[in-house]
């Protein structure tokens, strides 16, 4: 029966190509724009590292003075001091891996005079960063424990920068210069992109770091520190490039710290570990305030960020209204289409066709039109998302990498399925009235008129 209905539907569509084309266009364009909008909302609200985002925690210790305002979320809390960062990363708690870091930038230059020096942005971190963030390596690996402790001048660069500086060849062992300091490449990471740069809390889109540097080396070489230094009663920008020793011994919060727990169930235990650490520090005169730590999972961090992102809400509202307007227009086109079937319906009814059968056939026809409209919509959606990606890419600026934006504009199977499903369902829903009307015409009167 289904096969027969489909055949009838196809024949009917071919008999009225213009009206059906208009229907397909109305549904296709509506679904296309809507799917593009919901894809941006859906992808923009996804969290990176989904398999561990509920056990990866932003760690903040409240070492502020007594006069400071109470805070209830990570965004208002200071980052970690160097003293606490080092101490927490050295706590003997095997169920947690700690990584931390800050941003720096230098002029990256190589011996090859054909490569123009560029301002390179790097993340200064420890070697655990690569395993915690699931970063794949194309060549080499992260720096060793010995290199990390000794402050060896080594660097891990991205595939994009390796392509630019060394034409994609294995550059492990080669040197680049950061301003006037030579560093040796120990690893080249493969394609690795996040939707938002959460790990340094900039939450930037489309701008990945160019390189990763070991923290001991960055401190020894006095590489610039692009951080906000919260120093109790003030913020001191002078620590960006000077006063390293003073900064390291200070109560200034400036380092982003993450902890990956083996299991979500370890959270209570980890809280106790941090409380014990804070109590110990309090005994030596630090941490004057009550409480002490703030742990925020990556899920919670990103939920906060997504709530702030009103652009996508706007796209969603406009996309939904656009689709609804297209669907209502489709009702009109559908009515015109079914109105022209009055004679066909009367003859078939006079020949004994049941109303139920006719309704089934016409619904099949509409479903086919909806499916074709949905497929067209997916192509339109794909094109729209590509244009939106290009728009964002060019507006992010000179340093943007379009591959970093792929995740935010990716039309995946879920979205394709959703688009086609909505196209079919909405087509059927809007056609119910026209179909019922045409199937309820008075046969005798219409045939007499003919």
């Amino acid at each position, binding site marked *: 029966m289904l096969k027969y209905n489909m055949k009838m539907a196809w024949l009917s569509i071919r008999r009225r190509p213009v*009206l059906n084309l208009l229907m397909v266009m109305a549904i296709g*364009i509506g679904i296309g724009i809507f799917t593009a909008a919901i894809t941006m909302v859906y992808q923009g609200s996804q969290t990176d590292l989904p398999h561990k985002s509920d056990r990866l925690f932003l760690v903040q210790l409240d070492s502020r003075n007594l006069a400071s305002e109470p805070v209830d979320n990570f965004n208002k809390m200071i980052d970690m001091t160097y003293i606490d960062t080092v101490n927490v990363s050295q706590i003997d708690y095997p169920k947690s891996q700690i990584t931390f870091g800050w941003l720096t930038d230098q002029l990256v230059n190589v011996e090859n005079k054909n490569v123009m020096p560029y301002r390179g942005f790097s993340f200064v971190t420890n070697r655990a960063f690569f395993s915690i963030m699931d970063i794949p390596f194309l060549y080499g690996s992260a720096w060793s424990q010995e290199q990390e402790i000794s402050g060896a001048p080594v660097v891990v660069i991205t595939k994009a920068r390796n392509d630019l500086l060394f034409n994609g060849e294995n550059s492990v062992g080669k040197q680049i210069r950061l301003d006037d300091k030579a560093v040796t490449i120990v690893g080249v990471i493969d394609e690795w992109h996040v939707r938002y740069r959460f790990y340094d809390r900039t939450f930037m889109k489309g701008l990945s770091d160019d390189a990763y540097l070991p923290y001991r080396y960055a401190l020894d070489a006095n590489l610039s520190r692009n951080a906000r230094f919260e120093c109790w009663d003030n913020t001191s920008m002078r620590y960006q490039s000077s006063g390293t020793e003073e900064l390291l011994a200070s109560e200034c919060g400036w380092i982003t710290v993450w902890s990956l727990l083996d299991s979500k169930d370890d959270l209570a235990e980890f809280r106790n570990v941090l409380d014990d650490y804070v109590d110990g520090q309090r005994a030596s005169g630090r941490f004057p305030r009550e409480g002490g730590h703030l742990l925020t999972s990556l899920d919670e961090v990103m939920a906060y960020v997504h709530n702030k992102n009103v652009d996508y809400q706007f796209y969603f509202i406009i996309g939904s209204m*656009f689709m609804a307007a297209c669907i209502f*227009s489709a*009702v*009109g*086109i559908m009515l*015109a289409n079914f109105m022209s079937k009055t004679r066909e319906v009367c003859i078939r009814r006079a020949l004994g066709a049941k109303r139920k059968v006719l309704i089934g056939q016409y619904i099949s026809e509409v479903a086919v039109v909806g499916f074709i409209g949905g497929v067209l919509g997916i192509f339109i959606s794909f094109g729209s998302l590509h244009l939106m990606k290009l728009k964002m890419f060019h507006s992010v600026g000179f340093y943007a990498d379009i591959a970093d934006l792929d995740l935010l504009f990716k039309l995946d199977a879920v979205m394709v399925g959703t688009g086609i499903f909505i196209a079919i369902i909405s087509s059927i829903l809007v056609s119910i009235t026209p179909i019922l009307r045409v199937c309820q015409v008075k046969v005798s009167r219409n045939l007499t008129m003919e």
Partner: protein
Amino acid sequence: MNLKHILKMIKFHKFFALVIILQVTLSMSVVSNSFFLGLKVYKEWSLAEGIVPEELITISAKTYQPGANFQSLLTEDLDELSKIKGVKGVTPINLTPIAAGWPNTIYDSEGENKTSLQTHIFNVDSNGLNVLGLKLIEGRNFNSIDVKYSDGSEQPNVVMLSEAMAEELFSDSDAIGKTIWLAEDSSPVEVIGIYSNFISSQFLAAKGMPYRSILQPKVVWHRENAQSYIIRVEPGTAGSVKNAISDHYAQIVGRTGGRPDSLADVKWQVFFERVGTFLMYMTISALLLIITFCGLIGLINFIVSTRKGQIATRRALGAKVSRIIWEFITENMVITVVGILFGLLFTVVISSMFREFNGLVAADLIYALVVAVVICLLNAIAVTISVRKTVKRQPSELLI
């Protein structure tokens, strides 16, 4: 045809009336909001810059020479850049006009009752005013004694204000000779001049304060931030000067001039996303109007087909074709106007919900009426196309 009859007909075809109302409401909302976004971008784009962006080039010269003397490099840069053919003047600068980033907070007095204001403080040398092409309206320009050259440790004790800034700070009196504070707990600085307005940043432009700025006679050299310059060029020479700047730095080992941009390029970069968004919404609006038009034709065709008898009777009784068409237009116009009113409501609600619409005023709603007229016109055309064919047929054909 009286209103009572029209309402009766609408009630009779209530499902279709509802569909048309929804269609018009949604189309009106989407198109009006797109129109508003375009209007906002246009307003921001067409705001007088106060400078000539095509004749100003911004560069950021960076250094990676071991042991470089940044003070002498600054002097060399100013000297070498001035020699390039087409260059009329150069000044070191810390921010890019039109696209300065996060604003500074300044204060009008000391103590607890001080008022803070957001602005941008542009550090320039004594050529700054002329290089930017600003007019001195009152007071005097910086002289070489005013300008403090240092690694950041020295603070000048004079500033110049833009006209808008002076108006904001000292609306009641003459600003010249007055003092302001460029940071909390800083030393006061004296206002020695007032210059013509220029757009300082998009951040302040979005807040309706595009012309707030302060010029400070200060040149800082330090390693961390590359040294930025603004270069004034002869009209039409920006392209060749940009190339010459790139070539100049490419020849010096350990230096790079980055990517010189004219302020016209900078403005375009700043507006790229907004213009893209505007074009996207206008495309969506055009498509939606076409689809709405097709849908209306279909719907009205159907309504007309159910009223063939009525049309035939009226034609047989001597009603003119134009009168019947006009009655259908009137009937549909009532429905359309209801849709438009709902659409206007939606438009206002949506535009008040999102910051994209900041800067629009109630008077701009007049543009929504343009959209309303376009939709009414499309509706009238759709009705005419649909009704005309049927009405022109003989009553006898319609009654069979």
